[in-house]
């Protein structure tokens, strides 16, 4: 954080201050898609503080050493709600060994469940997977106008962590290209939302039209030191 930056809303904080909101057994939602757009410093903070028994909610489990995968492959999660774990074989092994519970949700359904939680809705009704044994298992169905839908419940979390390109002191966020992905949804779904930003800019320097996540949904902003993992394609 630029020490000269005004902090009129008290939202700009340090990683250490952010970590005070993490505890064992909490439900944690994370932004990102295959690690792209996941907040590296907050993820390392979780490892350093040795937070355990996490219930994680996010698109996927990243790669073993990329994104949230770093947390999962070190056995820090007891449960994951995600659309796939295919890119993280360690997650698959932990699941096979019974050390990690995994709840799979189709990707588009998962993103809508996260959004529903963030928007204060109880659930959404979708026909995706309604005739699919695995997807519809243990879910309630509802018929609307002769058509069956699954009741897919909203998801929220104790804390949400997101990765932004820029944040202002109110927590208004803009993202970077496809690193936007689930971040705006995850930001809304946290009971307490922490944004790690590549750049923290003064209030008023973001155009009100370009803001993707209004600061209303963001409780804390910390500066990022950038991605510290090597991408799979590198």
């Amino acid at each position, binding site marked *: 954080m630029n020490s000269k930056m005004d902090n*009129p809303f008290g939202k700009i904080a340090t990683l250490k201050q952010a970590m005070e909101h993490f505890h064992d057994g909490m439900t944690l939602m994370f932004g990102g898609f295959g690690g792209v757009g996941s907040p590296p410093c907050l993820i390392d903070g979780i490892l350093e503080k040795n937070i355990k028994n996490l219930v994680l909610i996010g698109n996927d489990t990243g790669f073993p050493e990329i994104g949230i995968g770093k947390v999962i492959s070190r056995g820090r999660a007891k449960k994951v709600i995600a659309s796939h774990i295919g890119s993280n074989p360690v997650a698959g092994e932990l699941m096979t060994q019974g050390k990690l519970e995994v709840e799979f949700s189709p990707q588009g359904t998962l993103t809508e469940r996260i959004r529903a939680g963030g*928007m*204060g809705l109880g659930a959404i009704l979708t026909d995706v997977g309604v005739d699919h044994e695995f997807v519809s298992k243990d879910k309630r169905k509802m018929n609307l106008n002769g058509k069956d839908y699954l009741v897919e419940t909203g998801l929220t979390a104790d804390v949400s962590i997101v990765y932004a390109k820029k944040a202002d002191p*109110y927590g*208004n966020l803009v993202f970077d290209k496809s690193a936007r992905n689930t971040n705006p949804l995850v930001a809304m779904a946290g009971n307490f939302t922490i944004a790690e930003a590549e750049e923290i800019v003064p209030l008023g320097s973001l155009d009100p*039209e370009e803001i993707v996540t*209004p*600061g*209303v949904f963001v409780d804390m902003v910390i500066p990022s030191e950038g991605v510290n993992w090597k991408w799979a394609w590198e």
Partner: protein
Amino acid sequence: MGMGIDVRNKMAKRAAEEISSGMVVNLGIGIPSLVPNHLPNDMNVMFHAENGIVGMGESPVKGHEDENLCNAGGFPVTVLPGSSYCDSAVAFGMIRRGRVDLTILGSLQVNKNGDLANWIVPGKKVPGMGGAMELAQKARRVAVLMNHTDKNGNPKIVDSCTLPLTASNCVDLVVTDLAVFKIIDRSLILAERFAPYTIAEITAKTACDFSIAEDIRVIDY
């Protein structure tokens, strides 16, 4: 009448005391729109509009209105640094998610349990609820700013609302031209009175039982 400010502004000034720095606040039309005039300049409050604005500032100077920058009531506004635009669904998501800390609304009736009746005007056909229900049911705190009695002198704080409800058990605070009531655990408490009105006068114009705070405050601005 204290410093001589008019009754509407006295009510607005009292309501402004409910606002603290960092809050997200939604204001209804009418007297609530006067509230920002009574806030300290250094206070960081984000005013929210249901159509899709966070961070509204004061009204524009006449002749400088922007037809595409209006609040939910359709009146031109300005925005402050840190503001943002969003679609109306997200604006209501903020309300339902509990991210709007306070709404200050007008009302037709409030009952002693905190039921709010502010969406159907007597004698008119149903005009629709607009965003009133979300605000009443979902804002973290609901403050009502209304005259103590209607045009015919009938009390607007009642035992049971005779007008159709907007939402039940939602009102936390009622500021009238005579007094301030808190509603805590569905009980109505007279907490403050505007000088020079006496408790007896207030009681006479209120159509339900209420308790009286021991340390009742007298407001004389």
